[in-house]
């Protein structure tokens, strides 16, 4: 069967089970948009290519399936570089298709030409410049294989216009052998000798902590984690990338570690004698000052990517594997620590002394951002998905929302991409239309990508957006207050400019505003009653509110700053 390259590309995506593409057409990708009309694949027309990328990420994080985005060459391609970089930092499976100028024009500075494979070399797991229509099926099949196996990540396929316009004989690779990836071997045999050494370390430990990272979610190991944690009785911490991997309601869960982690989670790691790292990478936001990080702990480091071993922290035992397989092997070997009663007594004492607190909200406002999040959570349906931007609101959402299952927390961890929230929430809602999706956003973040609410309205994607509007780039303001002698430099945004309610309405959404506690409860109820169009709520929050606990940049985790309300009894 003869097909054009464009037809072959769409057909290849169908072959991979793609149901949704987030994209925006343009000159070089034009041929591919024609056969899209005849395809079962849903296309979401975004208003900016960055939105397409973040939507694909949100889709992937909510469903566990790879997100797909398609854009044109030149500026279309460079506009999606930020999401590609974001997905690379967070190991999110993404397949991004970019149009390219015709092969004969490559290298001539043609209109809308840019070297997108060169630009994204360092921020993709791999990328392809497809040289002929006949090669399209192989490139697509290989891209999905690469994006979703081993350590997942973004893969970019650059397709020149003449390649999509020329004819090919339809075929599709029947097996991995036909992908032509001689250097890619994601299957790793489990090192049973290393597992045995890890089991021996566990047997000696009196103060173990399960340090759970995003890799636990990527390897779908939540059930194995729950079983292992409950059998051994070990305390669990979940990093920003792993929220939802272990139920927040579980008594063994100490919460999130790191710069804005729970006092108990941070301190338990510091005082532990064994850290079992499950798909975590000892990020600087978790370790604080590295030489002072968990100084008395031996380390069992489980990761699918061996380049993570000994990169930041030397491992006593390194096991290259997906997390699920290792936990299963630990259970098979009946890995059990010593009696943990004393350890739990210590931990529970920390918990009693340093719970998560914030100042009492006042009836007339301004609202406490933490209280707003808890109020939304209290009225949210079980299984609600929460997306966030980056900054104070993100930390408060991670701290105050209770995550109970995988795929319910969508955020930008490694890259810290402001503006991630709204498009990621849209992507998550497309992937999980059965779930309520809230975006907890900041006013700074919202202004970066809010135009995608027009996309949401026109495509019928009813997300709910809570803007915690403190009129500032709040996290930067917090640092300037604490570390720059309250010299506020370029952080003020104004609470009233833009008018978020009018802006929401202009984009076809319902716009609401709350300044007082009474209004807060009313607008949340109103938002919950609207399920056909997106809702945006402008919550007026206290500009001076800061995120605590906090470990200052470069400081030891031992010097964690708790909330001012708790400092008297330290």
């Amino acid at each position, binding site marked *: 069967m003869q097909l054009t390259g464009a037809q072959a590309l769409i057909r290849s995506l169908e072959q991979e089970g793609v149901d949704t593409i987030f994209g925006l057409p343009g000159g070089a990708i034009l041929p591919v948009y024609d056969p899209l009309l005849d395809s079962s694949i849903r296309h979401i027309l975004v208003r900016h290519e960055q939105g397409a990328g973040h939507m694909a990420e949100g889709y992937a994080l909510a469903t566990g399936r790879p997100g797909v985005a398609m854009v044109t060459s030149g500026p279309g391609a460079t506009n999606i570089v930020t999401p590609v970089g974001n997905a690379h930092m967070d190991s999110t499976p993404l397949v991004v298709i970019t149009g390219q100028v015709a092969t004969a024009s490559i290298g001539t500075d043609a209109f809308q030409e840019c070297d997108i494979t060169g630009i994204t070399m360092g921020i993709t*797991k791999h990328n392809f410049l497809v040289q002929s229509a006949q090669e399209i099926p192989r490139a697509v099949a290989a891209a999905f294989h690469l994006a979703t196996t081993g350590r997942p990540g973004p893969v970019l396929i650059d397709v020149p216009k003449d390649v999509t316009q020329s004819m090919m004989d339809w075929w599709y690779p029947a097996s991995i052998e036909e992908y032509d990836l*001689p250097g890619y071997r994601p299957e790793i045999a489990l090192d049973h000798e290393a597992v045995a050494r890890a089991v021996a370390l566990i047997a000696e430990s009196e103060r173990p902590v399960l340090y759970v990272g995003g890799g636990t979610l990527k390897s779908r190991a939540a059930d194995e984690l729950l079983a292992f944690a409950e059998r051994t009785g070990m305390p669990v911490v979940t990093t920003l990338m792993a929220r939802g991997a272990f139920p927040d309601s579980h008594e063994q869960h100490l919460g999130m570690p790191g710069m804005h982690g729970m006092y108990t989670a941070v301190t338990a790691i510091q005082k532990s004698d064994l850290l079992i790292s499950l798909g975590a990478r000892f990020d600087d936001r978790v370790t604080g000052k590295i030489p002072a990080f968990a100084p008395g702990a031996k380390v069992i480091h489980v990761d699918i*990517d*061996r380049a*993570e*071993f000994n990169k930041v922290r030397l491992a006593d035992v390194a096991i290259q594997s997906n997390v699920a397989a290792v936990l299963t092997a630990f259970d098979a070997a009946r890995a059990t620590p010593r009696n943990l009663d004393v350890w739990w007594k210590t931990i529970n004492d920390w918990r009693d002394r340093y719970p998560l607190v914030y100042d009492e909200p006042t009836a007339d406002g301004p609202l406490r951002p933490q209280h707003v999040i808890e109020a939304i959570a209290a009225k949210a349906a079980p299984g609600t998905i929460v997306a966030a931007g980056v900054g104070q609101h993100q930390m408060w959402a991670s701290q105050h929302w209770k995550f109970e299952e995988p795929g319910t927390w969508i955020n930008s961890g490694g890259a810290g991409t402001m503006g991630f929230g709204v498009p990621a929430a849209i992507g998550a809602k497309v992937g999980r239309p059965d779930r309520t999706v809230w975006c907890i956003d900041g006013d700074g973040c919202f202004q970066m990508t809010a135009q995608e609410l027009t996309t949401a309205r026109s495509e019928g994607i009813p997300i709910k957006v809570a803007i915690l509007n403190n009129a500032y780039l709040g996290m930067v303001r917090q640092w300037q207050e604490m570390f720059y002698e309250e010299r506020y430099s370029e952080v003020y945004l104004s609470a009233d400019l833009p008018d978020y309610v009018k802006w929401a309405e202009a984009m076809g959404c319902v716009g609401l505003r709350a300044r007082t506690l009474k209004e807060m409860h009313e607008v949340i109820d109103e938002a919950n009653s609207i399920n056909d169009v997106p809702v945006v709520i402008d919550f007026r929050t206290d500009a001076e509110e800061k995120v605590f606990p906090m470990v200052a940049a470069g400081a030891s985790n031992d010097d964690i700053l708790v909330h001012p309300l708790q400092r008297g009894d330290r």
Partner: protein
Amino acid sequence: MSPEPYLGEVSRTPVRHHILSVLVENKAGVLARIAGLFARRGFNIYSLAVAPAESHARFSRVTIVVDAESAPLEQIVGQLDKLVNVVAIHDLAPSDAVERELLLATLPLGDDHRSATLDTITKAGASIVDVGPTSVTVMLAGTPGACDELERALEDFAEVELHRTGRVALPRLG
């Protein structure tokens, strides 16, 4: 003839160098992927040699001498191995490898120190591969140490143009 530009201190082979013999797919951009990885991770390349491997067009052999001071070797190998186009990495400690490198140098053959020049060439085991009216081009294929030695010896001569290929290596046989 204009003077040679100043290129900074001549860097000698670092003590803690390591040889990575890397088999890669012979595809466009693979060298850029390797060079880009080293650049963005802050790994230093001391020398680099690339050629098609074993007469097959499908693979190339890249011999990279890395400065193991700039990053732990385990990190360099681990990151390199993640490049999809990298098929195999052989990590050769200098003591376990047979290393060879080629040096070409053009030097003046003035009447006043003709015999000293020829003496230097002979002692180093280099051969003359080209002769001009007032200069000569010599070649040495030898160990990196031998090339270092000849390079040092030629520092005494004015107006020497010298190129080295960077080394290639294979594991020592027993």
